[in-house]
């Protein structure tokens, strides 16, 4: 028997959706995925062009598993096989690749409702949360070692070894950076998995939307950006300070507006009402203003889209509608510094500046 033609490809994906889409495209062009190494080397064998579906899942077996957790994987694979899926392979971090031929009218996804999608998404979020936690542990260990070495050498009247100082200087920012990366990846994968292969996607392919990174300083720019995206068929679903998550929807003219605590209090003041203020709220966690903001916005026919933590709320109009503006246009052009980074962060930055100044003055006097 002639051995099958094989192909090895090097590719690296951050997004699982893109990776799985690519595998599906490869099968359509006659290459069937059969193995993966180091999440980068993909192995294919020649096949007749076929529409295959790929899914990824994992089992997060803890170090001390219960009976239920041990059974979990066996039952899952059994049920998946019953439903027409087969395990292709798994990678070094124990992600399992499932494959099934696309059959019209069948359930062509591993997780086909919101609840179960959320379940898988949480597994990935949990994985990265744990990784981040481990990094913090390592970071603390190096910190303690550093202190211990410093103490030991000061007792001996010597100095901390040079190599250790340099090691810590490199190590600390790298591990801290990794920690934030892991946390963010966890959040990103969560969002990716809950949106994966939503049944409303038109060609049956995975259509989860997209993430854009942008730093926008004024409300008017943000409004223009979001309205522009809506005209191209991308609806804002959620956002962080610099990242915008869009999902595909029919293109239409949507107006967007933003609200913040400051603007909500401005409106209250204009009506002769007292300011919403919480003197016990040191870290800016009280979000009473959002209740007021929502009531104001809904009375003017704005629809809630998302809230950027406790700093800003984004509203959208109904398609092709022109609701009354929520706030006076004069606020549109002002920099939205506070709502961008939050009052708490602004406070910390201010404190750092002041203490830096005091430290500098004392330092120069000495």
């Amino acid at each position: 028997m002639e051995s099958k033609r094989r192909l090895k490809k090097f590719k690296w994906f951050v997004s699982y959706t893109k990776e799985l889409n690519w595998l599906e495209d490869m099968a359509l062009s006659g290459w069937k995925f059969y193995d993966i190494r180091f999440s980068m080397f993909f192995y294919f064998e020649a096949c007749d062009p076929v529409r295959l579906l790929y899914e990824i899942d994992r089992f997060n077996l803890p170090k001390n598993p219960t009976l239920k957790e041990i059974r979990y994987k066996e039952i899952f694979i059994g049920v998946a096989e019953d439903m027409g899926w087969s395990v292709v392979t798994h990678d070094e971090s124990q992600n399992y690749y499932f494959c099934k031929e696309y059959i019209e009218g069948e359930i062509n996804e591993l997780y086909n409702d919101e609840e179960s999608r959320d379940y898988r998404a949480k597994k990935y979020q949990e994985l990265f949360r744990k990784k981040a936690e481990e990094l913090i542990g390592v970071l603390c260990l190096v910190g303690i070692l550093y202190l211990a070495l410093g103490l030991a050498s000061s007792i001996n009247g010597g100095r901390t070894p040079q190599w250790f100082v340099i090691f810590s200087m490199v190590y600390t920012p790298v591990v801290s950076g990794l920690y934030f990366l892991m946390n963010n990846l966890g959040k990103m994968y969560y969002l990716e998995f809950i949106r994966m292969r939503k049944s409303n996607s038109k060609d049956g392919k995975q259509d989860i939307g997209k993430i854009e990174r942008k730093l926008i300083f004024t409300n008017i720019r943000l409004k223009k950006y979001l309205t522009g995206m809506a005209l191209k068929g991308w609806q804002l679903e959620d956002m962080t300070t610099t990242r915008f998550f869009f999902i595909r929807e029919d293109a239409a003219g949507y107006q967007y507006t933003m609200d913040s605590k400051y603007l909500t209090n401005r409106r209250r003041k204009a009506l002769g009402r007292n300011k919403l203020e919480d003197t016990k709220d040191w870290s800016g966690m009280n979000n009473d203003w959002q209740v007021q903001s929502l009531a104001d916005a809904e009375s003017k026919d704005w629809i809630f889209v998302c809230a950027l933590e406790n700093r800003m709320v984004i509203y959208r109009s109904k398609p092709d509608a022109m609701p009354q503006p929520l706030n006076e246009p004069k606020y549109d052009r002002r920099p939205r510094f506070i709502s961008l980074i939050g009052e708490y962060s602004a406070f910390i930055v201010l404190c750092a500046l002041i203490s830096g100044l005091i430290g500098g003055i004392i330092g120069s006097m000495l």
Partner: protein
Amino acid sequence: MSDGLIKKYIPMTETTYYTLLALNQPRHGYAIMQFVSRLTENRIQLGTGTLYSMVGRLVDDRVIRILSTDSGKKTYQMTDLGLDLLRQETKRLDQQLQNGIDILRQEGVINGE
């Protein structure tokens, strides 16, 4: 039967209820899905993710058990405990339905037969 189990399963989710109905007879995963789809005229489509997490939970709580693994395929069937839960839930649903019909009939929202 433990109170914890009653609290956990009554009231029962619709998917659990239909899965238990399907497992009145030994069935494997795909057969459960087909049975439920047919019975609900495709209103409930149990996917792999839903089915397996439910099956895992039900096996763990001994509401259903794994029957045969000889052909490599696992077949599941409801236990006596499962049957008892199903009976209690059906009784509860019957009361719920009756209450609904009575009130809506009084209000004239639905017609009496």
